């Protein structure tokens, strides 16, 4: 059941400040989530998925060739849609339970 007048969105997004880190994040995430879509707005990239986005920072570090941790990831996370959860080595964004 939904509210009249409100169009329900199941989309989960992460807006990343464009640059080398963001490109590595997107490469890892697209490999793990083939249905995800990336839109390039110039100054930022919008990673969009109809399901949860699970960022494994070790995998991103592997892609970058250096250690990558939560503070480094949050440095480029400009915005998001969904419910975020920050753990020691992962960040996840999932649809808010309705």
């Amino acid at each position: 059941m939904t509210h009249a007048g409100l169009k329900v969105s199941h989309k989960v997004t992460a807006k990343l400040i464009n640059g080398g880190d963001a490109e590595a994040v997107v490469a890892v995430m697209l490999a793990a989530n083939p249905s995800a879509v990336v839109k390039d707005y110039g100054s930022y990239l919008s990673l969009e998925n109809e399901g949860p986005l699970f960022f494994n920072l070790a995998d991103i570090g592997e892609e970058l060739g250096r250690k990558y941790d939560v503070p480094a990831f949050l440095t480029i996370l400009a915005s998001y849609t969904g419910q975020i959860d920050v753990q020691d080595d992962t960040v996840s964004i999932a649809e808010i339970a309705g």
Partner: protein
Amino acid sequence: MSMQITRAYDRVKAIDWEPSYIGKDQKYVESTRFFLKGLKPVDPFKTFLREYFKMEQEKENRHYSVLEASSRLHSGPPDARWMESMKFILSNLATVEYAAGRQMGRMARSVAPMELRQGYMMQMLDEMRHTQLEMNNIRQNMRTWEDPAGYDIALRGAGNNVGAGLFRAMIEDVTTCDPVETSIGLQIFIETAYSNVFFVGMSAAAAAHGDNTLASTLLTIQSDESRHMANGWATLVTLLQDDRNIPLVQQALDKWSWRTHVSFGLANALSQDYFTKNRTESAKEAAMRWVYDEFFGGFYQKLERYGIKPPPRMEEQIAELDNLSHSAAVYVFGAWPFFYHRADPMTAADMDWLEKKYPGWHGRFGWFWDSYAKCTDPNDRAIVLKELGGLPNFCEVCQRPLIFPTPQAHSGRSRVHAGKNHIFCSAGCEEIFVNDPIHYQVGKSFYDLYHGCTLAEVVEHMGYIRDDGRTLMGQPLLRQNRMWTVDDLRRCDYVVQRPAPPPPADDVKPVQETAGGAAH
């Protein structure tokens, strides 16, 4: 090796204490009408100082290296329309961020649960950082932009400009309402629903207009806003654990949905459609994507399981998007002497784009730009404000002029309260007033200060004069044979007159009183 985030976070939480040397009343200072006892809050970001400073230092390093590089590389001047408009926008952003910092200090003191307080404290530091970033951006523009006049009085302009009243009224409302309601106003509506449109969406516009400094400033700020959005969500779902809070939350959501639409939403729309040249999407398209699809569809709608209903004026908000930016432009361009930037009016190409994005635009707003074009040469002694019949009334809740949805058919109205006549731009603002009239008792309005003064006297009093003591900061064109002076304004023979109040309307009833009054 440093301790893991989750373990360190639990350890920090464990050293919270209640002071023995002052009572709870002294500690919390302000009470709240929301029920907070026994709630179990969450902080999804688990932020604490060690990680916070590491992260913020990295953000600063990245941002200031952009500024350094832009000083060295001279990649060409940014677009003039954009840079002039940012005199107005940047000055107001800096003061709004500073006020948000004050609000977080107040919330950290007034809202008891430790997990929320921790997030608010970090946000307070963020807001101070944002103020400094924006002030530094203003300084950078003063040093590098071809015409620094206006950037040099940014804070004065934010304090006394009639258009900036919109921002002042919004942020003071968030500061002075119930401290828990502050979270709903600031973190849910201003930061989750609307700040994305400007700080993320407009960062792409800044880059498209060659303003890489501001693009970097906006994005590094918004990366902090991610945590603020989480603070808002954490506060909201914590409040909704207690059924007694549901009607109180609903009332605050209803208020702030309209309140943010008429303030931040209006500023976003004006910036997107009228302060840009290399456009990608219209203000309406951006608002539909960020606010109505992502926020209302992906966030707000999920509150249904708690019994939260959609805001009653949401359809009206969406309908206003067809005219919001255009009516705002009539005001900002029409009253150009009251501002401190050079205006760049719409060209034939701009008008074609506006007609394409907003079918029927020519019929609704083309008349204004025809009048404007006839009043730009100071030798003609014609000022567009006079041709339009003068400044309108201003709303006593949001400070919008009474020209919305359109100047020809505005929804302005008045209402007598405690023996005094009050003026509102819309049913939405009248309803907000009726539910909390004491909150909106104004001191001196624009007309209390300036009724009977000439245009030249007002501009001189506001201090919008260049260093030569006679040329105006505000100009109706980017470039012209000679700029307008205060003597030109005198020759236009315009005297500020308080307009007659609009008639009352009978479509607003007070919202039924809800239970509340809980303390800590």
